[in-house]
């Protein structure tokens, strides 16, 4: 049944995937098997996206399926079964209200085992500082879809440094308007303008790959 779930998920058959997941949860592997299979499916979808076979329309559908299935799967998991490989504070920077890229990256990062704390959009610099103090993440992710956000990222990173927190974290920036040049300009540690690559780099920054 795991294979069937994997296949219908990767083939974007929403109804089938949800139906099989509901069945699987009651049988052999239980919730843990559903979680693992869905993570594997998300990884495969990410691979297809990076290979140019899948598009944002498929990432959105996959994220939606993942969330739907997790809604009834997570409550059934025992504490130890949801192992996290690290924590990331994630948000869209000041002046930018685009949330879709961030949300897609979030689901994929979560599916890969990263504990993501989403602090929202259009964020004043201090919000990042407060969240870092509160959640003590290893990673901070900033999403930026507009060029006006480049300066916001730079300022936010300065403010994090002024708060004495820069050395405790790695910063990865993402979104349609980031690049190597932008990364160097703002002083981040990594950049990605696609979610699959972003997940890979985040794992590297966590020393998990």
């Amino acid at each position, binding site marked *: 049944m795991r294979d069937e779930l994997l296949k219908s998920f990767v083939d*974007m058959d*929403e109804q089938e995937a949800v139906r099989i997941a509901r069945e699987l949860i009651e049988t052999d592997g239980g919730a843990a098997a559903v979680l693992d299979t869905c993570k594997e499916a998300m990884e495969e979808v990410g691979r297809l996206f990076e290979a*140019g076979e*899948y*598009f*944002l*329309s*498929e990432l*959105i*559908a996959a994220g*939606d399926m993942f969330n739907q299935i997790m809604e009834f799967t997570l409550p059934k998991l025992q504490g130890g079964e949801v192992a996290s490989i690290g924590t990331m504070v994630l948000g869209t920077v000041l*002046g930018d*209200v685009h949330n*879709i890229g961030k*949300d897609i990256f979030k689901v994929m990062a979560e599916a890969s085992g990263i504990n993501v704390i989403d602090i929202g959009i259009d964020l004043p610099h201090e919000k990042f500082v407060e969240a870092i103090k509160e959640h003590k993440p290893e990673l901070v992710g900033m999403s930026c879809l*507009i*060029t*006006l956000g*480049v*300066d916001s990222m730079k300022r936010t990173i300065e403010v994090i440094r002024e708060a004495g927190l820069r050395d405790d974290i790695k910063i990865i920036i993402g979104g*349609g*308007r*980031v*690049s190597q*040049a*932008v990364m*160097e*300009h703002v002083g981040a540690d990594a950049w990605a303008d696609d979610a699959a690559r972003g997940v890979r780099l985040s794992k590297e920054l966590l020393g998990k790959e």
Partner: protein
Amino acid sequence: MPSPEMLKLAEERAARYRAAIELKEPDRVPFTGMGGDVVAAYAGISSYEYCFDPEKSLQAIIKYLKDFPSDRPIGGMSGIGNAITQLAFLDYPDLTGLFAMVDGPTNDILGVDYIRFPGREVDEYSSPQFIGAEYMKADEYDELIADPVKFLFEKIVPRTTRNLRDLGSPAALATMARFGMHKARSGAFMQKQAAELLKLGYKSEPASFFLAPLDFISDNLRDTVNLVKDLRRYPDKVKAAAEALLEPMLKLALLGKNIGADMAFIPLHLNEYLSPKLYNEFYWPTLKEGILRMLQEGMKSQVFFEGWHDAHMESVLELPAGWGVGYFEKTDVRKAKKILKGHTCIMGGIDVGMVIASTPAKLDEYIKELLGEMMPGGGFILSPNIGNLPRETPIENIAAVYEAVEKYGKY
């Protein structure tokens, strides 16, 4: 009165642009220039002042254009388009145009929920913003399909526009009267502005506007993520809605002919989201039909292929050669040229991220290489990949780009 030299300069600039659109080699590469929030910053004023004080904004534009002349400058951002209200008033052609651009004072009068202005809903130094939301529920597709204009007027305008919530009320009537008074004033100012810019060698070039019907639904009615899900959940309804919106959208774009427009600007949003299968089934048919029908009526298109358009390049070749301008954002213009040479005028090339984050020397090198590859054969308009340079953009980087264009831009 503009001097004869300036009139001649204005003609030269316009001719350069026209030649590129006709896929020829002009005397120099046409360069749109680079505008945006930096125009206000350069004059030392806030974005709030730029949006609400026309005299100050005109002075800022003049100052910037004197120091950074180009062939068809973009200026700063002083307003946000409002396709919903335009379509809602489609049957009153003398009024529709007035709704095209919501400037600061207009938004004070109308109170559009999805538009935010500096010094009002956002910080004094931000640019004006469009914020989408779900203004139409999935179960309302049938109503939209049955009569788009009626639906937009009766349902969506009141939902999105605070001061027109109750359409028959004295408050709404007063809003419309105030709107009319403001437009009379701002129309007069526009004429003054056009005259001032002509003195600097710039003709005003009226342009029309068209949206891919699916983008209209996505940005203005359903919200992007909902629309992408609708494609799988209610495919027939989405298709019928796009078809129903095509005629009103075309009628709107063709009204531009009354003010002398011969080019329609079409910014694409869902292109990057959709797989070729979804693109070709749901998005492209009504967009293509729109471009072709406008062309029949003598109006070319300037399509802004936002994000990555690489997966859909071949479909552009379905249009007849000389159909218009393909303006690219993330898709590499060199790659576009390989596919579309002799068929589509290509526009873009300057990565705004670089203008912010790079150095004058690197930018000089970059422009030199870019022009070396893109100019031969003509049919190329040089422009930034995004129309908005942030306030903080280093002026020496801007100057370096203009100087490089001057140096390397001659045919």
